[in-house]
């Protein structure tokens, strides 16, 4: 059975950089408050009308250039913020990349979305359905945020990261290990946009029945914190068990970039020294499904992630969903 091997990586951030001071000018918060509670200093926001497919295509093009390919057999997009509720955004991403005709679809698992999308793509490769798959995590998450909700408005950011997976052998550098995934639907209210789906109409469609605030994202921070630490730690342990690595063997822990304090707590639970954490949220905030590929791309570009490094990826997100995997970082072309 063919393994899925990372052969290229790319990222893109929308140009609009927003500092904590910029946010403090718009709402009752401060740089110090945001930094000490979240570790975030800056984030990027899409300009009005810039769709997720644009971000995804920019990152995807860079990943394909890094992989040295102008074609792939499929495009899988992980996103919480598709261009429209229907249809999926991946076909439009494929069109923007000159890949019209290729299979393209979205995967929805919020902040765990990129790991779910990797699993899907790896399955296509293992089954022989594809030789190369472009896997993108992209979010215009700021479009879900209530501008009056300062607890969420300071945390999230927009951006996209992507990898190309190719068919290879299990021992190849960059080969994904077993991807451990899980979910618990009883935790759906922890991380949610309540209205606009089949369960509850969008408030514009039915103002009598739906609160205007329900169109926006909401999160129960304290419970998310606890579940995130527990599930990311558990799934990372399970992923490590499949590789045979001990926690001390891990060179870089790339957790979903939700909150610096969650990342540190996960490292502590796993007995992985905190200096092995890849930290990117200070620059971009929480970019949901885009956070892991963005963090990988940044760490790769800066040399923080070197070829041969033993890497663990772990995420927790809405659903609730969670997952982890491990791989040895390959030698990739920087773009």
């Amino acid at each position, binding site marked *: 059975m063919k393994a899925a091997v990372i052969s290229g990586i790319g990222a893109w951030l929308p140009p609009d950089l927003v500092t904590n001071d910029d946010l403090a000018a718009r709402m009752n918060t401060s740089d110090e408050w945001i930094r000490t509670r979240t570790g975030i200093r800056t984030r990027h926001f899409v300009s009005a009308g810039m769709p997720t497919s644009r971000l995804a295509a920019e990152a995807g093009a860079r990943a394909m250039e890094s992989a040295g390919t102008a074609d792939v057999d499929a495009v899988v997009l992980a996103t919480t913020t598709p261009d429209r509720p229907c249809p999926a955004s991946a076909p439009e991403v494929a069109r923007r990349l000159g890949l019209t005709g290729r299979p393209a679809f979205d995967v929805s698992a919020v902040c765990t979305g990129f790991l779910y999308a990797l699993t899907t793509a790896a399955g296509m490769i293992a089954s022989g359905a594809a030789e190369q798959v472009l896997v993108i995590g992209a979010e215009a998450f700021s479009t879900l945020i209530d501008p009056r909700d300062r607890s969420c408005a300071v945390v999230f950011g927009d951006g996209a990261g992507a990898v190309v997976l190719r068919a290879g052998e299990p021992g190849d550098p960059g080969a994904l290990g077993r991807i451990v995934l899980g979910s618990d639907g009883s935790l759906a209210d922890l991380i949610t946009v309540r209205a606009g789906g089949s369960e509850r109409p969008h408030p514009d469609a039915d103002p009598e029945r739906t609160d205007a605030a329900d169109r926006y994202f909401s999160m129960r*921070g*304290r419970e998310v*914190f*606890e579940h995130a*630490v527990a599930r990311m730690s558990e799934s990372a342990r399970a992923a490590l068990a499949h590789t045979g690595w001990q926690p001390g063997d891990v060179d870089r822990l790339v957790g979903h970039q939700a909150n610096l*304090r969650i990342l*540190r*707590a996960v490292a*502590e*639970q796993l007995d992985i020294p905190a200096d092995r954490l890849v930290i990117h949220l200070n620059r971009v905030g929480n970019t949901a499904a885009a956070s892991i590929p963005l963090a990988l791309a940044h760490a790769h570009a800066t040399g923080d992630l070197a070829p041969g490094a033993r890497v663990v990826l772990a995420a927790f997100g809405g659903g609730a969903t969670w997952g982890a995997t491990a791989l040895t970082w390959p030698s990739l072309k920087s773009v």
Partner: protein
Amino acid sequence: MSTFTPPTFEILSQVLEEKFGVLREDIKPDTVLEDIELDSLALIEVALTLQKRLGFVIPTEDLNSGGTVSDLYELVNSAAGNA
């Protein structure tokens, strides 16, 4: 009956000092937790660290940053008693 008393308060003080930079002289029974910058997430971090070091589960739903160091200590001790 065991006469062994785990040095819980010492461990609690160590965690607050090492992880959160709380000065020892501020760790008094009647110190209010939010006055030493321990918000609700910080208390969960404290609970997770203590759980790992002490080996038993601390019920985080009972943690409240409006409580005192003494309340936190009692909570950890009762969790130890139930372990």
